[in-house]
C-alpha cells in the first residue's frame, strides 16, 4: 500500500494549495510546495529502491481490476517524473513572479504530478487509463493559465485531441480485455488465442490513441498550439513528461498487454512505422520553418518523441533500449530548452527566434546550457542524445523490417540535420554576434538558472556515463522479449 503515498501526497498538497488562502501568499506557497517536491522525490526514491511493490487488486468486474504495481518501466517513469517535476517546480517559483495566480498554477501542477504518479505505477490497463484521463484534465488549467482567448482556444484543442486519443485507447481496452489471460500487465503480453483482424485493429487504434499524447502524425496538432500559450514550466512538463505518458501507454500496450510477437510483421507495425517516420521528418522540418521560439520547440518535441516511438515499433532489444534511454534524454533536454526559452522570453519580451540576437553576450551561462543541450538533441557525442540515436539506428538496421530498416535510420539522420539547423543558430549567433553589439546583463536569478544548469550537466553526464540507464533498458528488454 506504500505506493499510494507518492500518489496521494501531491494530490493532497495540490488540493490544499488550491483551497487554503493561507497558502496563496508567495512565501508560504514556495516553502510549502518546495517541501512537497522534495518529500515526493524522497518517497519516489524509496519506492524505487525498495522494490517489488504492489497493491492488491480492486475488482470492478470479472476481468477489470484497479491495481498498482511497480515494475522496471514504472520505476523509470515515476523516477523521471519526480526529478523533472522537482527541478521544473523550483524554476516555476521564479518564473511565476511574472504571472498572476501563482497558487493556482502550483496547485494544478501538484495535481498533475500526482496523476502522473498514478500513470507510472498503474498495474493494469484500466488503472492506467484512469490516471491518463485524470492527467489530461488536471493539466488543462496549466495550459489555459493565462486565460487569454488564444490560451482558452488552445486548451480546448488540447482537451479535444487528448480526449479523442484517450477514447481510442478505451476502445482498445474494451476489445482486448476479454481476450487477456491476466488482469495486470504481464511482461511480454498475455494475449490468449489467435491474433485476428479485430485484435490487430483494436491494437492499432490504441496505439494511435496513445500516439495523440505523444504527438504522432496526423494527430500532433495540439502540441504546437498548446505550447506557445502555456507558461514555460507548463510547456516544459507537457513536452518533457506528459508526452511520455503517451509513450508509456504505447509501451504498456505493445509490450505488457498484447506482446511484441502479436504485431511483429503485421500491417499494424508497417503503418505505425510509416506514420512515425513521417512524424520524425515533418516535426523537424516544421520546426525549421517556424520562427516562434516555443512553437519551434513544440514541433521539435513532435519529432523527438517519435524517435522513442520508433524504438518501440521496431520490436527488438536494441530499439527498446534506445527508446527507454531516449525517454530520459529527451525529457531532460527538452525541459532545459523550454526553461531557457522561458528565461529568454521573460527577460527580453521577444518570442521570435529572429528577434533574439546576441543572447550569448547577455546571458552567457544560460546560452551555454542551450548550446550543450542543443548538441544533445542533435545527437553529437559526447552529449546524451547520441547514445540513444546510435541504439535506435543500430536497432532498426538489425530488425529486418525490409525497406524500413534503412528508411527509419535515414529519417533519423535527416531529422538530426534539420535539428542542427533549427537549434544551433540561436546559440551560435548568440555568442558570435560581432563586436560593437550593445549588450546588457540579462542573466536570470539562481532559482531559474540552477535547474537549467543541472539539466545541462545531466545531458553531458548521461552522455558520458549512460551505463546504468542502458542496463535498465536492457533489463526491461530482457523481460519483455
Amino acid at each position, binding site marked *: 500500500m506504500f505506493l499510494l503515498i507518492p500518489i496521494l501526497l501531491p494530490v493532497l498538497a495540490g488540493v490544499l494549495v488550491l483551497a487554503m488562502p493561507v497558502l496563496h501568499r508567495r512565501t508560504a506557497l514556495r516553502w510549502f510546495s518546495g517541501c512537497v517536491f522534495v518529500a515526493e522525490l524522497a518517497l519516489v526514491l524509496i519506492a524505487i529502491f525498495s522494490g517489488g511493490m504492489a497493491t492488491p487488486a480492486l475488482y470492478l468486474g470479472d476481468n477489470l481490476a484497479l491495481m498498482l504495481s511497480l515494475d522496471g518501466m514504472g520505476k523509470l517513469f515515476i523516477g523521471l517524473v519526480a526529478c523533472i517535476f522537482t527541478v521544473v517546480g523550483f524554476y516555476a517559483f521564479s518564473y511565476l513572479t511574472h504571472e498572476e495566480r501563482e497558487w493556482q498554477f502550483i496547485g494544478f501542477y501538484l495535481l498533475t504530478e500526482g496523476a502522473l504518479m498514478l500513470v507510472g505505477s498503474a498495474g493494469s490497463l484500466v488503472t492506467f487509463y484512469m490516471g491518463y484521463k485524470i492527467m489530461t484534465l488536471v493539466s488543462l488549467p496549466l495550459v489555459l493559465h493565462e486565460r487569454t482567448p488564444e490560451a482558452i482556444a488552445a486548451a480546448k484543442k488540447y482537451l479535444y485531441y487528448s480526449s479523442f486519443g484517450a477514447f481510442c485507447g478505451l476502445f482498445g481496452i474494451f476489445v482486448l480485455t476479454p481476450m487477456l489471460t491476466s488482469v495486470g500487465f504481464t511482461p511480454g503480453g498475455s494475449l490468449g488465442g489467435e491474433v485476428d483482424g479485430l485484435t490487430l485493429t483494436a491494437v492499432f487504434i490504441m496505439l494511435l490513441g496513445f500516439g495523440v499524447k505523444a504527438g504522432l*502524425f496526423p494527430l500532433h*496538432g495540439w502540441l504546437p498550439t498548446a505550447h506557445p500559450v502555456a507558461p514555460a514550466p507548463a510547456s516544459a512538463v507537457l513536452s518533457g513528461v506528459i508526452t511520455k505518458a503517451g509513450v508509456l501507454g504505447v509501451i504498456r500496450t505493445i509490450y505488457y498487454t498484447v506482446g511484441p510477437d502479436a504485431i511483429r510483421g503485421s500491417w499494424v507495425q508497417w503503418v505505425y512505422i510509416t506514420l512515425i517516420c513521417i512524424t520524425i*521528418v*515533418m516535426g523537424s522540418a516544421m520546426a525549421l520553418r517556424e520562427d516562434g521560439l516555443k512553437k519551434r520547440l513544440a514541433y521539435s518535441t513532435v519529432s523527438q518523441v517519435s524517435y522513442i516511438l520508433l524504438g518501440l515499433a521496431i520490436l527488438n532489444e536494441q530499439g527498446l533500449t534506445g527508446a527507454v534511454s531516449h525517454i530520459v534524454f529527451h525529457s531532460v533536454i527538452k525541459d532545459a530548452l523550454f526553461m531557457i526559452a522561458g528565461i529568454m522570453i521573460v527577460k527580453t519580451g521577444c518570442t521570435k527566434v529572429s528577434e533574439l540576437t546576441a543572447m550569448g553576450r547577455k546571458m552567457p551561462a544560460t546560452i551555454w546550457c542551450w548550446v550543450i543541450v542543443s548538441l544533445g538533441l542533435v545527437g553529437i557525442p559526447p552529449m546524451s542524445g*547520441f547514445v540513444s540515436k546510435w541504439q535506435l539506428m543500430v536497432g532498426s538496421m538489425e530488425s529486418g523490417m525490409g525497406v524500413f530498416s534503412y528508411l527509419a535510420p535515414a529519417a533519423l*539522420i535527416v531529422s538530426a540535420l534539420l535539428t542542427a539547423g533549427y537549434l*544551433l543558430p540561436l546559440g551560435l549567433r548568440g555568442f*558570435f554576434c560581432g563586436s560593437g553589439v550593445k549588450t546588457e546583463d540579462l542573466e536570470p536569478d539562481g532559482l531559474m538558472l540552477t535547474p537549467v544548469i543541472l539539466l545541462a550537466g545531466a545531458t553531458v553526464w548521461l552522455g558520458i556515463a549512460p551505463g546504468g540507464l542502458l542496463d535498465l533498458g536492457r533489463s526491461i528488454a530482457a523481460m519483455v522479449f
Partner: protein
Amino acid sequence: MSVEMRQTMLFFLVFWPVFGAFVSWLADMVSARLRDNTVTAVVVVEFAVMVGMLTGFYQDGTVISGSMASFGGWGLNLEMDGSRAVYGTVAALMWLGTGLFGREYFASHYKSLGRYNFFYLLTLGATMGVFLGSDLFTVFIFFEIMSFTSYTWVVHDETPGAMRAGQTYLAVAIFGGMAMLFGLALLYITAGTLALDELYSAVSQIPEKGKVWTAGLLILIGFGAKAGMFPLHIWLPKAHPVAPAPASALLSGILTKSGIFGVIAVTVNIFRYNPAWGNMLLVLGAVTMFGGALLALFSVNFKRVLACSSMSQIGFILIGVGLLAVLGEENMLAARGTVLHMMNHSLFKLLLFMVAGVIYMNTHKLNLNELKGWGRGKPLLMVLYLSGALGIGGIPLFSGYISKTLLHEGIVEYASLAAGQGGFTGWITLLEWVFLLTGGMTLAYMAKLFTVLFIDRPQQTHPTAKEKKRLEKGIRKRYMSPLSVVTLSVAALILPVFGILPGFTMDKLADLTAPFFRAETAGDIAYFSLNNLKGSLISILFGVVIYVAAMRLLVRKTADGQREYLDCWPAWLDLEDSVYRPLHGKVLLPLLGAVCGFCDKLADRGIGLMNRAIFREKSRDYWMEKGPTAEKLRKKLRIRHEQILASSLSFGLLLCAAGMVATLLYLLYWR
C-alpha cells in the same frame, strides 16, 4: 618511457588538454598572462609526453592499447602504435608551434582570447583522440567533438564573412558527420565490429559487397569532408582565410589530416587491395589536386592561396591513399610517400601560415595588392618563406621532394603493373602528367607569392608624421618577437634537414608507420638518383612556364609600372554559391517544407472540413454565407446567427435520424 609508463599515460594524452582547457578558462578570469602561461604549459607537457611515447615505441616497439569501457555506453578504445605515435607527435608539435607563436600573434588585436584558448586546448584533446582511436566508434566520437570545437576558430573574428564561412564549415561538418554515422551503423551491422584490427577479416567474409560499399562511401563522405576532398572541399578556401593565422595552420595542417587518417583507416582495413576503391580515390585525388592548385593560382589573398594549396596537397595525399589500394601488396613506396607527404604538408603549412600570421599581425592586410614589397629588407622572413615554399614545391634537398618522388614512383609502378596485366594504361599516364603539372603549378603559385612579398615595389604610401620620424631616425619596428623568431626558425629548419638526410629521419619515421598501412617496410631508396630527379625537373620546368604565363595573364601593369594582381576567377564557378546553397535554399528546403506543411495541417484541415460539412447551412442559404450582400440579406430576413444550427446539415441529419428511430419503433412495436 617504459611500457608501463606509456600504458598509464595513454589516456592522459587525451584528457590532459581537456583538463587544461578548463584550467585556462579559470586562469583567464585572473589575468591574460596567467592564461597564456597555462596554455603554453599545457601544450609543452603534451608535446613532451608525446615525444616520450614516440621514443619509447622506437626503442621497444611495443604497441600499447587501453580502453575505458564505461564511456558513452560503448567505451573508448585507444591504441599507440607506430603511426599513431608519429602522427600524435606531429599534432602535438603543431599545437606547440602555434601555441608559442600565438602568444605574440593574439596579443596585438584580438578579443575573446579566453574562449579561443579554451577551444584551442579542447580541440587538441579531441584531435589526439581521433589519431589514437583504435576503433571507428572512438574515432567518430572525437571527430565530432573536434568538428564543433574547431568551429569557434573559424568564426573567431565574428565578421559577416567569418560567420558565413563558419556556417559553411559547420554545415559540411554536420552533414559529413551524419553521413558517417549512418555508414558506421551500417558497417557495424554488416561486419559486427568497428575495431580497425578486426575489420579486414570481418569484411572479407561478408558476401554482400553492396552494403560494405555503401557503408564505406558514407564513411568516406564524413572523413573526406574534413580532409577537403572534392566535391566537399567548399569549406576549406572559405574558412582558412578568415580564421586567425595559428588556427588556420591547425585547420590546414592537422584537422584535414585527421580526415585523411580516417580515409586511410577505411582504405587499408575495409578496402584493402581493392582496385575499384583505389581507382575512385585516384580520380577524386587528381581532381582535388588539380582544382586546388588552379584555385590557388587565381587567388589574390595570401591566406586563400595557402588554403587552396592545402586542398591541392590533400589531393596529392589522396592519390597516395588510392595507390595503397591499387598497388596491392607492392604498396610500400606508396605507403611511405603517403605518410611522409602528410607529415611534410603539416610542417609546411605550420610554417607558411605562421609566416602569413607574421604578415597579418603587422599589416592587418592579406590582399596581395596591398602587401606588395612588404618583405623587402626582411631577410629572415625571406629565408623562412623560402624554406616552406621550396619544401612544398618539391625542390630537391627539401623534404617535399622526397614525398612527392615517392608518390610519383607509386604512379609509375601502377602504370607498369597495369601494363603487365594488359589493362588500359592511358589514363594512368595522364594521371602522371597531371601529377607533374600540378607540381609545377605548386611552384608557380608559391613563386607568385614570393614575387609579391620580396620583389615587387611597395605602393606609394604616405607615411604619417610619426612613421616619418621613425624612418628618419632609422628605427625599424621589430616585426617579430624573439619567441616567434625561434618558433618559426625551428619549424623552418626541420624541412631542409629532413630533405637532405631522408635516410636518417624521414625513412625511420615512415618505417614506424608501415604496420598501420598494412605495408612492408621499404628499404633504402636512392632519392637523388637521376631517374628520380627527372620527375622533379619536369615539374620545375612546368613551374617556370606556368609562372610566366600566370604573370602575363593574371597580372596587369598599371600606368606607373606597378603590377596589379587580378581576381579573375569567375564567380559562377564557385561550387558552394552556384550549386550547394541554391540547391539547399531554393529546392530542398522549400520542397520539404511544402510537403511537411501539408502533412502538418492534415488533421486540422480534416476537422475543419468536417465542421464545415456538418454545420453547413442548407443549400438554399449557401449563397448567403459570406460577403456584405449576404450580411444585408441576413439582416433583412432576420436570420440570427444561432439559427444557422437549425438550418444546417447536421440538423437535417438529426431529424432524419429521429424519423428513422420513430419508424423503427413503429415497425417493432405497433405493426
